[in-house]
């Protein structure tokens, strides 16, 4: 069940739109912010708030890259796998993170903190190789930098912020 405060907030978000459906992504992002992913239950409740059927919301949820319909870790590490990052060694970045967290691509670490996923070009080609963790971008990745980021995230469970 979605918490009541969140529902109040979501209703406000929806009320500001030209039509409720416009806010479908925002609503799902808000829910993911709190719960990490869109469970079936969350889908049903979100759809109701948006005046959509669960199927109609699912049509959107399964289309987009940043909506998760399976459980993910607290931090979703998406390593760019497009051309420039590929050129600049994204393979090594993925291998390094995978071995450090002991998870394969697509896996979630045992402590439930990290999920490792590929992502298409994130628009930081000037800082390749790059990755995005919960919408925050990290570029010019080196093993040392990755170590720093991951240990800080692990320490600081209450993470949010922007570049």
């Amino acid at each position: 069940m979605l918490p009541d405060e969140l529902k109040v907030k979501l209703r406000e978000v929806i009320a500001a739109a030209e039509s409720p459906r416009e806010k479908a992504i925002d609503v799902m992002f808000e829910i993911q912010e709190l719960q990490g992913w869109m469970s079936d239950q969350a889908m049903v409740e979100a759809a109701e708030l948006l005046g959509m059927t669960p199927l109609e919301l699912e049509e959107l949820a399964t289309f987009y890259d940043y909506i998760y319909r399976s459980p993910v870790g607290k931090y979703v590490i998406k390593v760019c796998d497009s051309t420039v990052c590929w050129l600049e060694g994204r393979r090594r970045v993925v291998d390094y993170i995978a071995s450090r967290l002991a998870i394969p691509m697509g896996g979630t670490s045992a402590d439930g903190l990290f999920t490792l996923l590929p992502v298409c070009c994130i628009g930081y080609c000037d800082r390749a190789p790059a990755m995005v963790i919960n919408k925050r971008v990290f570029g010019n990745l080196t093993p040392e930098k990755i170590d720093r980021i991951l240990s800080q995230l692990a320490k600081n469970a209450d993470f949010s912020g922007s570049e």
Partner: protein
Amino acid sequence: MPDYPRVLFKNRKPDRVATLDEYRESGGYQALEKFIGGAISPKEVIRLVSEAGLLGRGGAGFPSGMKWGAVADSSPFPRYLVANADEMEPGTFKDRVLLHADPHCVIEGMILAAYSFSATKAFFFVRPSYESSARILERELENARKAGFLGDRILGTDFSFDIVVHRSGGRYICGEASALLNAIMGKRPNPVKPPPYPTEKGLWGKPTVVNNVETLANVPHILRNGPEWFKSLSAVSHGTGTKIYGISGKVRRPGAVELPMGTKLSEIIDVHCEGMAPGSTFKACLPGGASTRFMTAERYDIPMDFESLKKIGNRLGTAAIMVFDHKTCLVGATLNLMEFFARESCGWCTPCREGLIYMRDLLWRIENGEGKEEYIPNLRMLCKEVWNSYCALAPGAAEPVISLLDFFEDEVRQHISEKGCPFHATADH
């Protein structure tokens, strides 16, 4: 380094976003105060921008004035403007740099564009990995609102207009204008073929104009300094204005630089990127993003503008220059691009949904030692056939493949005959 006038990057700071005050000090919002105050009619805005020859910076290069002018006087209200900051094509990041440099330049451009066809609301369409840009925008939009540049009765005139940030769920196809409109309306972002054009029936059936961020950023400067000035910025006579080139890959200093339209590729790389990366020799580049054709060293001196690239059968696209060196396997690079396009196909039409998977599979086999001679003609045919797709995604995806086969067929054949990638030992990837 040659000293070119900086227009869009005038207020760019190495470490932070330019503030509203800084933008105003540099002459910002003057155009707005002057024109919306009644000195100039909406039609005049369109005339000036058309005269300046501003071409859309999102990739297609469509004349912006003409797009605004396509909203008929008699068409219904409300009318909408959309700033497309989706920028999801591999290699493209210029709009992010621009938004992080001087957001008000874009905001003022949006207000003026909206004024030209009486739009009352705009959506700033932002991709998820640009969350930081979205937050900057939300902050600066509020500042602009407080200063009276946005909201009801802007600067005391009859013109009311506001901008909201719309966050995307993240998909390349959302950058396509009609798909983007579906995305904003909370529908599946499949492209829709005109007619009707968005300028006639866009968001919720109302007239809507979709412009690229960089395009919009040019507008205040054109209105402030005049069309002649704008034309004079270009390095080539058939071009206008400046261009933000986003250079990435094997150069010493990748990044976004604002240069006269038509600056030569050689100058861009050698001067503004300080040359190739250490130990790298130029092999090829994609001149305008992932959906343009590989350009070889033969074209190293080409002026980088719409016309010049069109002449050689290529496209300026988004002017995102991806540079590959002699150690790069271009079969691998093309495979990587195809992985992207195949994954990002929206699934609407057959040639794109299945054809790109097909091409990806053949390229993968060539790269991984399972290639066969017959794959080459098959790939060529597929490149031709995906041109009959519903939208431009698949034809764009075919561009690198076509040029790979045109310019680097030997490299492809080497993969097949050697049953594997000859670059494996030397490459980074």
